[in-house]
């Protein structure tokens, strides 16, 4: 059974930086349990000889030459900034 506990909900919420209300925690606990139960179906198959697929295309070595492009003008850099302080982005203290 893949039921998720309240502690696990709080744990993943914290890892994902989501602040949940108590009501939310209860609601999501229910819903996440349903989802996890449905998706844990993946472990029913025998996959011992199967390699994982990270990419649908089997390509390698996609890269670019070391040639500079034009950087963004400051107005563009800060066009959507919630809090600009001179030429810096400002956030509450980390």
């Amino acid at each position, binding site marked *: 059974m893949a039921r998720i506990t309240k502690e696990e909900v709080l744990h993943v919420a914290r890892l994902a930086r989501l602040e949940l209300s108590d009501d939310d925690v209860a609601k999501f606990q229910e819903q996440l349990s349903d989802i996890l139960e449905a998706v844990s179906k993946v472990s029913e198959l025998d996959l011992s000889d199967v390699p994982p697929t990270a*990419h649908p295309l089997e*390509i*390698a*070595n996609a*890269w670019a030459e070391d040639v500079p492009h034009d950087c*963004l003008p*400051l107005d563009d850099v800060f066009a959507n900034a919630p809090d600009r302080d001179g*030429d810096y982005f*400002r*956030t509450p203290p980390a």
Partner: protein
Amino acid sequence: MTTAWEPVIGLEIHVQLKTETKMFCRCRNGFGGEPNSQTCPVCLAFPGALPVPNRRAIEETIKLGLALDCAIAERAVFHRKNYFYPDNPKAYQISQYDEPLCAGGHLDVPTGDGVTRIGITRAHLEEDAAKNVHVAASGRIHGATATLVDFNRCGTPLVEIVTEPDLHDAETAKRFLQLLRQTVVELGLSDAELEHGSMRFDVNVSVRPAGSDELRTRTELKNMNSFNFAAKGIEREIARQIRIYEAGGVVDQETLHFDPAHEESPPMRSKEEAQDYRYFPEPDLVPVEPGAELVERLRGEIGELPGARISRISETLSFYDADVLVTGGLDRLWAAVVAAGADPKDAANVLANQFVATGIDPGAVDAGELAKLVAARTDIPRASFDEALAKVGEPGFTADPYLAERVVADTAELDPIIERIIEANSGQAEQYRSGKHGLLGFFVGQVMKETGGSADPRVVNERVRALLG
């Protein structure tokens, strides 16, 4: 009976590559620009931005791995390392996890007692974070602060090198760092300046009873800004841990930040919140498969590295001299001067002492002319030698004009002068004969003055002693 303790030290070094552009975008890579002037949607992590790897950065990482004798992966993969912090705009860093570009190498550190081999666990490629500046917000009264972020550095290519815990003393750790730094600089990969942060390192320190192979709890020392400072810090930490164990206590796992103004990663809030980075392969990037041809081409571009040169030159000179020459960037000039006919030891002596003091760029020197100077060092007046040496870096320098004037070493010429001076200073002569041997210098000086500096000081010294009695 007190236990003997063996320190166990491992290093984690980050080297910024000095490519023209960043690791995953083509913004200019470089220190010192106006804040946020070297940014684009990719390194600012705007919605929809995608990473495109820098080919040169990949090749340089492979080169560094080869210089460290690592095996180069047939297939290397980038991974996302997930965590939230203002200097990490995607809230994940593109790094490498279990399929790094380079693994399983070593760096041989020559010492006076032979060569110490330090294992290199891995060297991988990742992107650097932005710069956080923590400030006091204006207008606030009670020391409230804010964090300002400059994304110029964000995305700089970074090679992370991790050593095995093969170091057992601070001095060797320091030499390892110096040698690694010189190797990286000589390969042209990085300026590796500690002040600019283009080379950074953390040290893991633990101790164990000598002879055992257990690995006890280690402390992490971060953000030390010089190799000397690091050596001292390591020694203090070793001593601290030994004191704790000998008092019957236990060493706690902790991180010691030595330069809080340069903290780089989010500090842990509590033990329960140990970071879970949730590594998974980066779906926006495809694997790197270097191929034998590329690896061999890069291997061919690596010359003889500093560690190997120290070992080789130690066969001709003392370890100390070899070390001074190579770490001082003088060994190439030394080899050329010796090839031009100078005696190896004399050449080493001149280069390591008088030449270094001139501050002249070794690359500007004509080795043949310097070789002549070295050969004539005791045959010409000291003043002439010094004058010649000061000009040895100038274009078109020739030694011959300075070699014309020979020192006078003929005792037939010198003895009469010496006798004259002894006679003229009979008081000092008496004092010398009655035991004040320090006055020898006075007489030698007088003779040198009388001869205008052209007497051979060694012969003068000998003859004055002989004639004073």
